[in-house]
């Protein structure tokens, strides 16, 4: 197991390297650069000034030198400084990552719990009304883009019902309180979660249906166990195994989704940071984002491998 993890980690180095090279190249191929992005008509800048700024940021060097410099910094554990505000990228991400993880974590958890529960119910009631309506509801859920879902939720819960705040991470200016934070979390998390819950539901249903036909379910029944024990201990435990993969695949798309949701709900996470960085051509921040999300996705996949071996004792990674 340990050696499997080590090997995976070793393998991930060239993978990360590849990701960063490509993203670096693409980021630099974007029209305009950090200096041009800052120019506005109100404060026009002279060519000399622009050149000077470029020099300051190292943008005048050949691309591969820029990349090597960047990699050099990374090897020293330093993600560089933002072109825009000069702050350390590591620090910025350190500040914002928890917010994004909170949002994504809760969304994923809710999606998983809700999706799995409904999926199991749907499977147990296969081809009955409950099943059909859940399936239909699921598909409608899958058909509403994140950004529109966000608006719908705000309309209903913030404007019409006035139950929840419409945006932000906490009430501005109030000292932090968990309750307040959670109230703010509900809508964005729900907007992210609904779509994924529908997906988990589909997979949970399929997984459960598969498990329900297994011989060991019959054995469990033959032992005279309670239906709930049979469903949960014998059924769900096994149905969860394939779901874990879906869980892992959901992560990269969740980062994409959180960019949209953070924008709509003014959630100060790395997604919001990233969008600004793109507009500002703030490549150290873009690269930091890419690196961190890639690492998280990889670690998550490793964690999923681990979870696999916990959930399924047959799996051994050697």
């Amino acid at each position, binding site marked *: 197991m340990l050696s499997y993890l080590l090997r995976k980690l070793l393998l991930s180095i060239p993978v990360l390297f590849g990701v960063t090279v490509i993203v670096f190249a693409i980021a630099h191929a974007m029209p305009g650069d950090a200096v041009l992005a800052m120019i506005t008509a109100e404060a026009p800048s002279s060519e000399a000034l622009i050149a000077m700024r470029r020099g300051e940021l190292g943008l005048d060097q050949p691309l591969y030198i820029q990349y090597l410099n960047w990699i050099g910094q990374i090897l020293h554990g330093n993600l560089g400084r933002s072109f825009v505000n000069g702050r350390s990228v590591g620090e910025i991400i350190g500040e*914002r990552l928890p917010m994004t993880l909170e949002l994504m974590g809760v969304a994923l958890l809710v999606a998983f719990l809700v999706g799995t529960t409904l999926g199991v119910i749907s499977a147990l009631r296969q081809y009955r009304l409950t099943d059909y309506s859940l399936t239909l509801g699921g598909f409608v859920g899958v058909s509403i883009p994140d950004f529109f879902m966000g608006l719908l939720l705000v309309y209903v819960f913030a404007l019409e019902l006035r139950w929840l705040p419409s945006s932000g991470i906490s009430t501005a200016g109030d000292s932090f309180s968990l309750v307040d934070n959670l109230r703010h979390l509900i809508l964005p998390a729900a907007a992210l979660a609904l779509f994924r819950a529908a997906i988990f539901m589909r997979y949970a249903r399929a997984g459960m249906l598969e498990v329900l036909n297994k011989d060991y379910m019959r054995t469990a029944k033959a032992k005279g166990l309670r239906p709930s024990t049979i469903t949960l201990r014998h059924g769900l435990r096994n149905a969860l195994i394939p779901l874990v993969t879906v869980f892992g695949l959901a992560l990269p798309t969740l980062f994409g989704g959180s960019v949209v949701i953070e924008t709509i709900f003014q959630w100060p996470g790395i997604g919001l940071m990233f969008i600004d960085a793109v507009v500002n051509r703030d490549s150290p921040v873009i690269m930091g984002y890419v690196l961190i999300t890639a690492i998280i996705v990889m670690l998550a996949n490793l964690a999923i491998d681990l979870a696999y071996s916990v959930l399924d004792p047959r799996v051994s990674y050697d």
Partner: protein
Amino acid sequence: ADGGTFRSAMRTGCIEMGTLHTTCGHRLDETVLQGLVHIKWTGDGVQPMLAESWKTPDGGKTYVFSLRHGVKWHDGTPFTANDVVFSLNLYANPKVNSPWSQKLSAVAGYKAFQDGSASSLVGVKALDDMTVQVELDSAKPLWVQLQLIAISIFPEHILGKVAPGDIKGNAFWVNRVGTGPFIWKKYESDQYVEVDRNPDYFLGAPKLDRIIYQIYKDVPPIIAALETQEVDAMSYEGGGVPISELARLQKLDYLTVLPKFSAGLPTYLQFNLENKRFADVRVRQAMLYAIDRRAIIETVKQGAGELSNTLFPQDWARAKDLEPYDYNPDKARQLLSEAGWDGSQPVDFIYYYSDQMNVDTVTAIQSYLAAVGVNIQPRLLDPAAINQTYADGSFQMGFFANGMGLDPSLGSPVVVCGAKPLSMGYCNPKVDELFNKGLESADRAVRAESYQEASRILNKELPKAWLWNEVRPLAFNNHIVGLAQHFKEQPLVIFNHPVYNEVEKWEVAK
């Protein structure tokens, strides 16, 4: 005192860079950091702030500022002439590399400082603790009104310790110490800035307890927040109320909505004049004839625009006898065919306002132009890409606006010779001369002559096809007393400059 909280929506996150490096967020600054003078919100002159008064013995070449006595920085340190000298030097310091440094280009010694042959501005001197003298290269009677208003004064005792190269992104900008009516309390990145009442403010202690500037990236959340009263103001910093939401907000009795607030923003079709296709003035004129601007303003823009046929948004700067270019597609077609326009070639058309109204506007323009045989292909770009496109001239037409509410002179970058990239290859020495003349006097009547003449030329030659001056609907919650009243009386948005808006007099209705 329970003065309450005012929450204002702000659609930017450009706080961390700091005043010296941003072209936005100055509205926030005026509540914490202040300048020597600010523009009066009524737009008719300047208001002494940290400078109590000033004189120019030589008609605009030398200015002597008497500073206000008894002013303290928020940390208790007294404000002195050193702070002023320090701040002016900071703006002009080439190591700081501020986009605002141009504002000081008229000061004696600016060139030397910039090219490294001098270590400070020789033209700026502290005569004593409370007096500062600024000497210019030549007489500029409007220098204070037009240039100094954009300069904030920073605490030398804090920023003086920071190397100029490290100013950008310094922790100071998220923990500012100023002299203004509110004291910087807290900044939560991408969330809000909280500023608290300064009881020692030199123009009188504010009535409000605090102001919270809530930061938003996206507009719909601001509208929702206005509606739920999570914020009190959608003003200029918030980007204005989208036209589509106007009716909705107008129905709410707790809001005052100003549907036609002039933004001082001439909007035009940009032509790449270096491209032969647009060299013929008849082509450019035809485009204006082709577009039913009135219809667009009435419908898509819901009235949010003032038809305009030349550069200046200020009434006094515009001649009365301009060609109106009323909607006339037949005339447009005729002009195009006279000019030998080749309608089969599509026209690359760039724009960067992504809000719905502007997208709809572009749609309408596209449709009108198509009707006369001009086939534009709209392309939405972000600012960096726009600047790149400008820099390498890789576009043909565009849809843009430039803020110049404060003074007609601010229009020069879009029309004077060689003012790349915005002038797009337009050059008429006569126009340049008129712009120069406009700055030679402080008397509006004298200045008006020059600008009106310029407006005529620009109206004829159409280096850009002037469409209208932008109008921004704003909305305010009525429970902040003073806020809506203040904007009701303000003639136009004075683009992006610190405005003395008497915020210390606003209060929350009991």
